[in-house]
């Protein structure tokens, strides 16, 4: 794997944590820093240069928001098949360009504004806190960073470990939606059930509910954050804006419930609900 922005504060800090978790980071990129090393990982000036020297399956992008578009396009253009954009503060139009490019290249983009993903006990790409994650067979997919760990801790408390934990990001436009990740979990033999951590804003929960409702391939539970948020207010996540009746917690909870997904009232309900289903 590759880390773009590896020499920045967050890049250095989290490269250490990822290496400790077992992630095979073979290269880093920061323009102008060729020849340096971060925790023993060689740093290159460009992604192209890194690709000339290493085989790279995935990239984690830690560069500042305004530079993310260029960094993500550089990775996609180089043929990197999975790009995880950790940074928050990426302009929405930049995310639209990244998503369009990924679609053309057949690549997977996760984020921006995401804690990243963890294949439990194998590798992590991002900044997810893994103290509350244990190996098991529940797939977790979440729009929120901090809340993800809240949910995994609750699952562990109910005796349920996780196969993969994916933070998809809190922005209005993100590379992969609930539906995209659910389809991956559907194909994954190591995953028997799926936990969604949704929130107000957008229609991603409704879309995945429509898909699940028709197929019901794997049991699923969900928590929707923000049912107590006042209308029209933006609460940190650009994606979490409630406008009128669109994107409300009620609409999401109703759609998911009708699709057979058990929705918890509080985050710590999910462990119990999932245990009843599988």
């Amino acid at each position, binding site marked *: 794997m590759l880390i773009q922005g590896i020499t920045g504060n967050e890049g250095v800090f989290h490269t250490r944590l990822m290496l400790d978790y077992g992630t095979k980071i073979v290269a880093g990129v920061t323009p102008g820093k060729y020849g340096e090393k971060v925790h023993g990982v060689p740093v290159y000036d460009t992604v192209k240069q890194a690709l000339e020297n290493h085989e790279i399956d995935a990239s984690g992008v830690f560069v500042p928001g305004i530079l993310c578009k260029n960094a993500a396009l550089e990775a996609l253009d180089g043929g990197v098949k999975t790009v995880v954009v950790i940074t928050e*503060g990426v302009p929405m139009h930049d995310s639209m360009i990244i998503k369009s490019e990924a679609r053309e290249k057949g690549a997977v983009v996760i984020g921006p504004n995401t804690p990243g993903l963890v294949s439990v006990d194998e590798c992590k790409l991002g*900044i997810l806190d893994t103290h509350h994650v244990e190996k098991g067979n529940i797939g977790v997919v979440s729009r*929120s960073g*901090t809340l993800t760990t809240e949910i995994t801790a609750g699952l562990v408390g109910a005796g349920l470990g996780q196969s993969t934990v994916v933070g998809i990001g809190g922005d209005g436009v993100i590379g992969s939606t609930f539906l995209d990740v659910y389809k991956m979990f559907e194909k994954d033999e190591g995953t028997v059930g799926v936990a969604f951590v949704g929130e107000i804003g957008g229609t991603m929960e409704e879309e995945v509910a429509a898909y699940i409702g028709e197929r019901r391939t794997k049991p699923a539970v969900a928590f929707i954050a*923000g049912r107590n948020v006042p209308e029209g207010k933006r609460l*940190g996540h650009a994606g979490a804006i409630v406008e009128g009746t669109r994107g409300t917690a009620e609409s999401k909870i109703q759609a998911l419930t009708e699709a057979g997904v058990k929705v918890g009232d509080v*985050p710590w309900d999910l462990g119990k609900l999932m245990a009843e289903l599988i």
Partner: protein
Amino acid sequence: MRLFEYEAKEVFAKNGIPIPKGGVATTPAEAEGVYGDLGSVVVKSQVLVGGRGKAGGIKFADTPAELKESVAALLGFEIRGFKVGSVLIEEKLDIEKELYVGVTVERSQGKAVVLASGKGGIDIEELARNYPDQIVKELIDVRRGLRPYEAADILRRAGVSGKALNRAAGILVKLYDIFWAYDAEVTEINPLVVTKDGSLVAADAKMNIDDEAVGRHPEVRQEDSFLTELEKEARTHNLGYVEMGGTIGVIGNGAGLNMTTLDILRYYGGEPANFLEVSGRTYMKAEEAIQIVLKNPNVKAIFGNFFGSISRCDVIAKGLAEAIKKGKVTKPMVVSMRGNGAEEGKKILRALDVPIYENDQIAGEKVVELAKRG
């Protein structure tokens, strides 16, 4: 960030979209100057909330005396909690037909969506509810953009024909180009008026610029007028802050966690007074953050709920500790901390006798109790 109608119109006009003759005024004297020889005019309150027409925020005038009266009535008038600080005075148009055109973001696919309707002049949500078949929608890949022939076809399907079709298509392409050039979340003209003499004019204008991208457009206003004073102060520190009606001040890191904090408080019968987010970019500013939370006079207790990620708990704890040592924390505070830097953070706060829990359920229950004792 939402622009005022007159600001959006300035942007539209600069980019070649025709707008009515007129101008903006903040005093009756200015209004007189703007009026000149416009004759019959419409006087529109400049506020950032919808529904101003129904709220009485739009008036008409045919003489200087009527103008004076309308302007005096509207300036300072309150619409849904927002004071009218300026009015837009514009020539009354000779309307033949009203169209709707808009461009916004389709989030799931990350594409632009172009909307058009031959039934302009009604609120788009209302239009979508009552006449869904009268709205034409087209998804646009942003790397490709909207082409003139596509704009023409969208409008043709929306029922526009004759000379107006070409003119409307030209305007729609410009509206899309503005959407893209200014990092807008939405650009909208409703109504786009076809006048009796066949010209097209943007009678209203709506434009929202992505908060994350405002910085790369120095030509537009940088400060968000939609915010309350405290929300603005928080914004100057890059902190997200929202005011609510209850008694518990909430400070936390991570939007999802903060929303859940609200859920937890309600679960135990508490009501949040406000809600402040320190993020991966601002977690070193906890000292400033807690002071903003306390400026709300209704706050009786504070709940700090933190889960260390990029925002490390020890750094947040140091900021809170600074505020406590300086005597700035005047209300009881309960803290919950987990994740990166939590052990160190707990040590710092325990030394200052702050009740601290790992579990935010228990912490939430405690703080609701404290607020009720008030």
